[in-house]
């Protein structure tokens, strides 16, 4: 029977309390939707109520939500999904024939020809087959087995499921999971939730957030003293850093995973978001297989993809998949059982994924428009990536690495000591203090670097490059001006 004061009011006799609830859940944090975002939402409410502020809207550059920032959905995708939702529209000649063809095929594969029926927990079979075919094409013919593909409720769902499967042991034998610093905080949240040991390996900011195997070795060896490291997670292209790993780096990581007997988790949701001229996306699977059977038949790996990013930006559908390589068949049987607790991934998300892996072909009516729209989205993102790096690097106190890919910039900020002291006085980490000020003064919502992890003594923020170009220019300029003002104020 716990007695504790909350907001000064004594709480007696609650059955579920902070003391007896799952302690792991208390350790979960998720900065992307954390306290700064809650404040942003509150400010939006205040604006709606007519309270005067130095700005008229809050720009939510905290979350990788392209449509929220004005990016338009791809016509073809929405046409097929509308047809799937209301098949009476198949009689409507406003819809192109290739859209109808795909809709019919998807509906045929759904129970009772309805997207409202549960599918198998692993996902609709013909969609998994299409995903496998897509992967084969993408990877220059390296075979992909539909049975090793699990559709999921966004990539996040699949990532968490794999971690659930992998994390075990007690005390010194507790599973350790290597994650990059900085990282997308789903990973740290999942590890906290599962009570796994988080093993940090640092990306090298001075080398454009590159990954060095010596750093992996350092982190691993240190971790071996207090846990059982079994998993290595890598995000490529990176979030929040945007780096696109070189082929050599990927080979090094694979070699390392093999030598150290680690399960590799390759988060590749941004695989089509590559902007830098000298960068190319190399899928972990492709590289693995090109390294020969010594590696391709032994290294155990899961790669993840999603419908939330790339050119589609359809976050709200919660579509995604993982491909498993070299998974022990007995373990796979357990995985099948584990995913059954979720029943099945949302059918609209599965259908959407099918279209992404099976887009209009050159001989099809929708091809021209589809390609035009897709190219425009990616070209605009590339433009904005460059713009962001350019503008941020003009102001002292902000250093920005090239945004090689993904959807974010993660610039380093240098703050005067006085500001850091002031932050401490207010009980905030310095980059949160900075970002909160920016939010209150300019209505721009970013996520402090502390939410992603960073080297001790460094400060960053993550901003999306998603606002429309003109607005982005304005936002970038405001942040630069704020940086100068802030530095001045605390000098």
């Amino acid at each position, binding site marked *: 029977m716990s007695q504790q004061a909350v907001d000064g009011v004594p709480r007696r006799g609650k059955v*579920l309390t902070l003391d007896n609830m*799952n302690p792991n859940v208390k350790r979960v944090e998720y900065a992307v939707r954390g306290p700064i975002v809650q404040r942003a939402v509150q400010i939006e409410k205040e604006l709606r109520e007519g309270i005067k502020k130095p700005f008229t809207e809050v720009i939510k550059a905290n979350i990788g939500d392209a*449509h929220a920032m004005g990016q338009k959905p791809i016509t073809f995708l929405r046409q097929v999904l*509308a047809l799937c939702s209301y098949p009476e529209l198949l009689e409507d000649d406003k819809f192109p024939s290739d859209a109808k063809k795909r809709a019919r095929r998807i509906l045929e594969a759904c129970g009772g020809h309805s997207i409202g029926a549960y599918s198998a927990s692993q996902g609709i079979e013909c969609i998994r087959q299409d995903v496998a075919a897509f992967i084969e094409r993408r990877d220059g013919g390296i075979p992909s087995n539909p049975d090793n593909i699990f559709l999921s409720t966004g990539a996040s769902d699949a990532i968490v499921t794999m971690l659930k499967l992998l994390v075990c042991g007690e005390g010194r034998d507790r599973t350790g999971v290597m994650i990059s610093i900085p990282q997308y905080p789903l990973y740290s949240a999942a590890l906290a939730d599962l009570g796994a040991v988080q093993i940090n390996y640092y990306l090298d900011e001075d080398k454009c957030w590159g990954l060095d195997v010596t750093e992996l070795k350092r982190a691993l060896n240190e971790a071996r003293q207090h846990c059982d490291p079994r998993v290595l997670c890598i995000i490529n292209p990176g979030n929040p850093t945007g780096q696109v790993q070189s082929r050599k780096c990927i080979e090094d990581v694979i070699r390392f995973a093999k030598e150290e007997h680690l399960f590799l988790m390759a988060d590749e949701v941004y695989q089509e978001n590559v902007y830098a001229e000298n960068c190319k996306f190399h899928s972990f699977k492709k590289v693995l297989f090109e390294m020969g059977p010594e590696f391709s038949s032994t290294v155990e790996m899961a790669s993840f993809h999603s419908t939330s990013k790339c050119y589609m930006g359809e976050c709200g559908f919660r579509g995604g998949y993982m491909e498993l390589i070299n998974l022990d068949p007995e373990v796979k049987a357990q995985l099948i*059982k584990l995913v*059954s607790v979720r*029943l099945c991934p949302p059918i609209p998300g599965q259908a959407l994924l099918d279209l992404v892996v099976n887009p209009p072909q050159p001989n099809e009516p929708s091809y021209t428009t589809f390609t035009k729209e897709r190219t425009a989205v990616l070209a605009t993102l590339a433009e904005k990536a460059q713009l962001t790096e350019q503008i941020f690097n003009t102001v002292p106190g902000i250093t920005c690495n090239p945004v090689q890919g993904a959807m974010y910039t993660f610039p380093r900020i240098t703050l005067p000591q006085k500001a850091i002291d002031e932050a401490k006085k207010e009980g905030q980490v310095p980059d949160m203090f900075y970002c909160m000020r920016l939010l209150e003064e300019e209505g721009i919502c970013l996520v402090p670097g502390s939410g992603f992890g960073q080297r001790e003594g460094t400060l960053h923020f993550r901003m999306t490059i998603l606002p429309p170009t003109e607005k982005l220019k304005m936002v970038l300029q405001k942040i630069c001006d704020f940086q100068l003002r802030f530095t001045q104020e605390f000098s």
Partner: protein
Amino acid sequence: MATEMSVLHKISSNVKKEAAYAVLDRQATRIKEELRQGARKPYKEVIDVYWGNPHRTGMKPLSFVRQVLAACLYPELMKGDKLPADVRQKAQGLLGECSGGSVGCYTATAGTPEIVHRLSEFITRRDGGVPSHPENIFISPGSQWSLANIFKVLVNREAPTRTGVLAPVPCYSTSALSIEELGGAVVPYYLSEEQGWELQVEELHRALESAKGACNPVALYVINPGNPSGHVQSRKSMQEVIRFVSEKRLFLLADEVYQDCVHGEKSGFVSYKRVLAEMGPLLADTVELASFHSVSKGCMGECGLRGGYVELVNLDPAVMKHIYILCSTDSCAPVLGQIALDLMVNPPQPGDPSYPLYDVETQHIRTTLRHNVKRAHAVLNSLPGFCCQPVEGGAFAFPRLDLPPKAVQKAKEAGLQPDLFYVIRLLEEAGVLVSPGSEYRQKEGTYHIRFCIMMPQHIMEEVLRRLERFHTKFMKDFS
């Protein structure tokens, strides 16, 4: 292929047990392939009534719902007047509530605020005015997702004793699996089959007592209307449950996804929240309750859209904060699922252009279910060896099977649960896929089957015809 030194050889020990569905699914797949190849069988197709999957078994989606979804997906459709005015208006409104006017955007963690607000208004209406607060509602990809999150908060792996959750026997298998997968222990309480699967509070006391020394029970999970039992709890019984959890300091989890599936003439659904509210402030202000609902059942049957919610009552605000953060790591529920929830609780009203069709469609669904329940109950109870309690609500019939000893013996020799043995035979010989009672736990020495009753009448008749034929032969063969 993996080497013998697979990294994953050591996996989480919570995830270890074979599921009957895997066995049956393989068999069904094989049979379907054989049929495709032209094999001669006493049936032309397999009828799958294993899961509560109404659209799969031939129920149709509601036109209004699908029209609104289509318009939200492809706003071009709102041009002109091909779609009814209220559909266009509703879609327009919903899109206005999405960031960027797109259903492809993330929403707030607990769901689009306006939809959450309308859910709370629905709950208040449903419960005769008992207030519901939006900040206590979290929309998720289906009720089981929410349930798993709440189980997760309750199950404390660091505690010296394993966390226990009281769950009914029989119980929906996914919920039980969810508890165990999180490291919790299921503490079974037996529903009284002879009393129509009633929940008797004495049994709750016994179950709680039995847990002493074995685990630390923290919660009671109730499914009302029941799955697979089909029982709809009386107000009196619900009051007893509430008093029990209050006295024993347990968290109450009320799975109410079948609240729109009540078929019996005498029984009506009342929510746990309402019953609680009507029991006076000492209980109403203290009993900690989570109630769950979903778009998967009822007249919607939209299982594939993955839309559900949990309403949390009387929780410690400090705990609520952590629940919010936990939910935020899932980003948000699928937007189409959220919209479906909204349409479920705010359907067309008399006077709306879509109302006549909506009314016809929903009446048809309700008539079909009532008819199917009557027929299933009658047919099953006419067959020696079957005994079916009244199906007052829910989506399933769960008759007891009195298997002849020879059949039980044969099953045991094959290393199978007797009801699984029966079900495998039924699938093979009659092309009907149902689930074995052993999947849901049952009193030792009793056997059952479960099958969905949400399907067009003619399919229900076919299922019953095949079942009757098979069962008669089976009982004869093993007499």
